[in-house]
């Protein structure tokens, strides 16, 4: 495939309201498990010979109709649109959904899913919030084992150590490629358009990794070789979009307004591990330990004594960012609570920031564009 064909293929995976690619996968005999954001233990899914499909709601693809009569109006769009996809049978090709503990809305959604879609598996995974406890690893290992049992009942295959080793190797390779993509973007963002890099990674979360890896590696090669020139833009990191996702148009708007997005938390669940998974030892215990000790800071897990402000400042410095753009989904509690604390950390270091709210189904971005341009102007014209 050409570079353009790769990108078009990737976009197809998550912009088709009927999820044609997923249906085709199912017809080939693969069994699929939907994963709600942010991080789900997809490694267990893969080891059980199932395909984890990371879903990020209905985006601009679906009118929310049935879901609203069962949920509340004061909640984020992604939970409602995901529920809508379920209720309208567009996710019938999945064997179930996994809901990790990120917020009360997603948690309650798992309960709504169970009642309204009783033929689907709907599992809520309670991740430890007490990262410091000596009991956290054994507890999480136990929880992963519970998940493994439920998944085995679907696939008929109980994962053994070899399954886990192969899975960890595959995940490590893929992760390394994604990390390289982000490093490339940070070094030469003019060569790697944000919307394209995004489409590539997002599609990767939906297809079998062995299928996606060659596409990812080919795109990387193309971008590595590109010889574009830098423009007069502001280097920013985008924060707050780790669950409900902005549309491709919004991503383009951010760049067109004069920014280079040199790091972000889009698709954070797909970039969860900060080091390769170890290949020896009891795999579930290793995975549990890894999840607790080698995961990125985020708004959905209590960080411990250091606080999120320090992590954000470190991220900004590492990426040589000139400012931070908080791009927060409307009604997203974790991001909204974090914002109040993170802005203090930025103000203390005099790092400029902008914050606005978005919804996945927005179609006009005039106001956001104006705010972004003003932000860029205030940095470019006055600093």
């Amino acid at each position, binding site marked *: 495939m050409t570079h353009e064909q790769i990108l078009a293929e990737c976009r197809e995976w998550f912009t088709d309201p009927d999820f044609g690619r997923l249906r085709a996968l199912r017809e080939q005999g693969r069994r699929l498990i939907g994963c709600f954001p942010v991080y789900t233990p997809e490694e267990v899914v893969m080891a059980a010979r199932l395909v984890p499909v990371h879903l990020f709601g209905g985006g601009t693809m679906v009118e929310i109709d049935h879901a609203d009569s069962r949920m509340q109006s004061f909640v984020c769009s992604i939970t409602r649109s995901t529920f809508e996809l379920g209720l309208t049978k567009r996710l019938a090709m999945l064997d179930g959904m996994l809901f990790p503990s990120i917020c009360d*809305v997603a*948690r309650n959604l798992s*309960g*709504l899913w169970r009642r*309204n879609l009783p033929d689907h598996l709907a599992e809520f995974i309670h991740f430890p*919030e007490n990262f410091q406890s000596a*009991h956290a690893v054994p507890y999480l290992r136990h929880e992963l084992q519970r998940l493994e049992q439920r998944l085995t009942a679907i696939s008929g295959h109980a994962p053994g150590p070899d399954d886990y080793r192969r899975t960890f190797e595959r995940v490590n390779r893929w992760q390394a490629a994604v990390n390289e993509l982000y490093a490339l973007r940070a070094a030469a963002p003019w060569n790697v358009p944000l919307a394209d890099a995004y489409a590539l990674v997002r599609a990767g979360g939906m297809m079998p990794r062995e299928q996606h890896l060659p596409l990812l590696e080919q795109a990387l090669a193309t971008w590595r070789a590109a010889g574009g020139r830098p423009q007069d833009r502001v280097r920013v990191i985008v924060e707050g979009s780790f669950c409900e996702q902005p549309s491709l148009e919004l991503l383009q708007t951010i760049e067109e307004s004069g920014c280079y997005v040199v790091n972000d938390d889009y698709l954070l669940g797909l970039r969860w591990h900060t080091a390769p998974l170890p290949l020896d030892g009891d795999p579930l215990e290793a995975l549990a330990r890894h999840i607790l000790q080698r995961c990125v800071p985020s708004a959905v897990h209590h960080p411990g004594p250091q606080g999120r402000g320090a992590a954000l400042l470190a991220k900004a410095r590492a990426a040589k960012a000139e400012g931070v753009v908080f791009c927060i989904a409307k009604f997203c509690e974790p991001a909204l*609570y974090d*914002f*109040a604390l993170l802005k203090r950390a930025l103000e203390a270091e005099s790092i400029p920031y902008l914050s606005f709210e978005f919804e996945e189904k927005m179609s006009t971005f005039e106001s956001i564009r104006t705010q972004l341009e003003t932000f860029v102007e205030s940095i470019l014209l006055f600093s």
Partner: protein
Amino acid sequence: MADEYRYQGTGRNLQKDMLGDWFQRLSQAPARGEPVAYLFISGNIAELLSNFGFHLVYPEVTALQCGIKKTAGNFILKAEELGYSPDVCGYVKNDIGLLHSGNASPMGKLPPPTLLVCNYSGCRTYVKWFEALAEFYKAPLFMLDVPYRRDDEIDPGDLAYVTGQMNELIALCEKLTGKRFDIDRFRADLADTAKAEEYWVRILESARRVPSPFDSYFEAVFFMAPLYTLRGSPDCLRYYEAAWREIEERIAHGIGPAGEERFRVVVEGPPPWPHFRAFWEMFQRWGVVAVASTYSKVGGLFDQGVRHDPARPLESMAEYCMNCYTNWNLGLRRDLIRRYLEDYRADGLVIHSVKSCRSFSVGQADTREVFSNEYGIPTLFIESDLADPRYFSAAQLRNRIDAFFEGLAHRKLTGAAPARPLPVLEVRP
């Protein structure tokens, strides 16, 4: 209440006095150099902390008191000035605004925390709340992580995780206070707690009577306060002995919470604290008595068999932590409501959905559909907020409430078919 009765008004007044004393002790704690712990209601471990001499502050109770005393509005605005969104929980904003206003609450000046214990049971906002307080107060934060009741049965691995953390918390408290954990006192306190729980359940179950002597929502929110805030102190058991006497007296003399009981309802959801009185009156004028409620179980599902047990102190406490209403999955909650409707012979279900609280509210619309359409239970769905005074539209609420009870009255008059009988369900806590 009439003078000829000895105990009427006890439940309301004694609780008020005890809470008043408690706040007074709190305001004196810093001057006395006494340690202060902040914690939450759902899954609270009062006896464990008071074992070390900690004074206890419950920010939810602070926020509720500010709401009912009509000072929440300014604190919420202050938090919004600091960057908190209009769309996040009003309780949290009240607390943060209060913190930035010198902690001068209408109940007195609140002491800062020596230790923040985030007992995360049922409400994820608790975690974000105490993350913020940890930063503003620069106080140590212990996360007591209580797993969600995601299946019908409790997994022993969950309980082991909770008791393991409790032991770690005990070690931390010993370090912070220099005191050793007194297991004998702990068992004695739990024994008293269990007795108080017995009385509380008797009070709750008195509402099975027709007519009911007790309003299990509008009165329960006050009667429950000592059980959720004063455990580990002698005041707790003393209160429930006295409150039970009041209910016994009501039963003996046929006294009800309000005039003539015309309608019996189960209520789901927290009340609108800044407009509590006005809200209650909208129901009282129809002779409505709440015979059961779910909000009164946020601090523990004691009427479902949960008890603290001095013979299994930490284990029973861990079970207690997992069995608070908002920590139950939606299926368990639904079944509980069904049992209440049946056991307490209710005419209908009132769902009060509040904007601030996602843990309660997300999915209540589905609950309405289930009860109204599938079970044929008359269900009233109304919305406002528990903390923010701005989100209350009196005219609209009154409209909906009046229309609902008019309809119910009509059904009773015309002898319309009663709701389909519900099968009785067993759920072990």
